[in-house]
């Protein structure tokens, strides 16, 4: 059972990266970015391409993938989301859904619908960590990378000028505007950071697990819900929530059932959503 928990932590770590990035985007840039998983997917495929077709070494491939995905993310924000500012939430959400569909099926067209695997020697060596739990070396690296990223981002947010500006907008956008923070740059920056994290998660995931064109969809849904349920909390809480979720998910698959797994997950999340129907941008709004 401990093995299942640890596996859950690994998955949760990836989910945490996604959720963290998405949380920054949704709460600071105010974009209900349902396309988040699209970047995840493409980053994995780009890594795949770089390694198998061009024989680029692993670390470089990861860096290149993440950078190019971030660039794509910036392009998307500058073209599509920037024009949608001021539109209704639902409109932006539908556009983001369209993007996710476009990304997903673009991947389908380019790479077909059979799963790809990136040859990764670090995935083959398994270490016994403790008490019957074993992990591949790469999973350890993944955990390390996730932890490092979270720490770096936290430091950035807490101590740098830009980071503080982001946090200000995260807490209270109106006030920040009054104080003179340039919201346009902040929006762009947070979108870039968020997409960066999605790209990192995707690249890492691609190196350890199988890649398929629709891998971005379930993780988008889960991250999206974690962000919404989490509300505007502190970022560390979001990370912990994601990891807990990963563990619960893993335990459910192992011990209860793997068939209805998705249905159960969705139902639980829907229930939570319905019990906490606040706006993303919100504390409860006083009526009238």
């Amino acid at each position, binding site marked *: 059972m401990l093995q299942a928990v640890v596996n859950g932590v690994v998955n949760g770590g990836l989910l945490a990266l996604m959720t963290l990035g998405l949380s920054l985007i949704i709460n600071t840039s105010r974009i*209900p970015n349902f396309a988040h998983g699209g970047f995840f997917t493409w980053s994995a495929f780009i890594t795949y391409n770089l390694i198998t077709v061009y024989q680029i070494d692993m670390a470089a491939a990861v860096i290149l993938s993440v950078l190019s995905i971030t660039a794509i993310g910036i392009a998307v924000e500058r*073209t*599509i989301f920037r*024009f*949608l500012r*001021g*539109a*209704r*939430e*639902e*409109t*932006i*959400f*539908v*556009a983001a*859904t*369209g*993007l*996710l*569909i*476009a*990304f*997903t*099926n*673009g991947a*389908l*067209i380019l790479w077909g*619908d059979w799963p790809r695997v990136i040859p990764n020697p670090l995935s083959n060596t398994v270490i016994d960590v403790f008490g019957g739990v074993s992990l591949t070396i790469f999973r350890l690296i993944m955990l390390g990378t996730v932890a490092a990223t979270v720490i770096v981002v936290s430091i950035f947010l807490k101590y740098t000028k830009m980071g503080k500006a982001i946090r200000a907008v995260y807490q209270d956008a109106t006030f920040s505007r009054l104080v003179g923070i340039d919201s346009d740059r902040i929006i762009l920056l947070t979108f870039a950071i968020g997409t960066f994290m999605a790209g990192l998660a995707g690249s890492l995931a691609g190196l350890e697990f199988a890649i398929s064109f629709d891998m971005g969809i379930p993780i988008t*849904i889960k991250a*999206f*819900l974690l962000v*919404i349920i989490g509300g505007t909390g502190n970022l560390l809480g979001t990370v912990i929530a994601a990891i807990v979720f990963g563990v619960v998910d893993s335990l459910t698959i192992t011990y209860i059932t793997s*068939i*209805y797994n*998705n*249905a159960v997950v*969705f*139902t639980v*999340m*829907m229930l939570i*959503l*319905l*019990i906490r*129907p*606040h*706006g*993303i941008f919100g504390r409860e709004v006083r009526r*009238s």
Partner: protein
Amino acid sequence: MKLKYIIIGVVMLLTAFFPFFTPNNYYLHLIIMIMIYSVSAAGLNLMMGYLGLLPLSVAAFAGIGAFTSANLMIRYNTPFLIALLAAVLLAAVVAASIAVPLLRTRGIFYVIGTMFFQLITYELFLNLVEITGGSIGLRGVPKPELFGYSFSSILELYYFILLMTVATHSTIYLIVKSDFGRSLLAIKENEVKAISLGLNPYTHKLFSFSISMAIAAISGALLAHYLSHISAENFSLLQSIDVFLMVTIGGPGTFYGPIAGAVIWTIVMEVLLSFRGLRELLYGVVLVILMLIIPKGAIGFPMMNMRKMLRTLPIRKFVSAIFK
């Protein structure tokens, strides 16, 4: 005003006599699919165009209608009309039950909540193999019959579905032109004012959601008995988005808009059917483009008619801004 009625009359005549002119059955099939989709589009329009909410659960309820009606006829030899009625009632009840918690949600949360219901229902369709045949689907769904007469040839099906479609649209017309339809509009335009004039928003939202999804169930049942072979794949999030696109393209909030949208998008879908992936890619792109060019990105408010829209400044602004 008069011109509108002339056009409608001509279209109805054309549709009625269409089978006599077509060279092969494929076109009949196309029109049948258009009719079936137009029903669910009209149902969704009640929510999107009149009430101003965006449920993404249309396909789920179509599926509920389809599998209920199909199973009743297959297993229990229920007469078609009764099976249909049961399917519609079940859909309405299910809709009413999830409508209650959804009442408290706003805007995007409503969309997400309904999307979740769609996803959950799809998973159930895939896994409840007893009822739905799982990923293979349900085969041998009986053709519709009335008082013993079975509509089995495509020509008979064509006229039967035409009849059902006209009947459903007429009912929707009555609803829309009544006090109820006006109340929905009032909620969309200014809910607070509507409440201050005595309107109970909860009952209206509940009813319109139930009616809207029940209509979707009708179209699902029609699909089931027409195709004779249905599976979960017919009732996924993509189909919900299909219907959403039909309403948006055709013009939400108008009575004939969804029908026009159904015509346009069904044809687009059929044309792209053979290109897997490309079709869905187009969905994604179309969704994004639509959201960009709808005035102020307002879903549920009638899009300007096509001509005016193409001349709209935002597109020029957009293009020039990108290439700056």
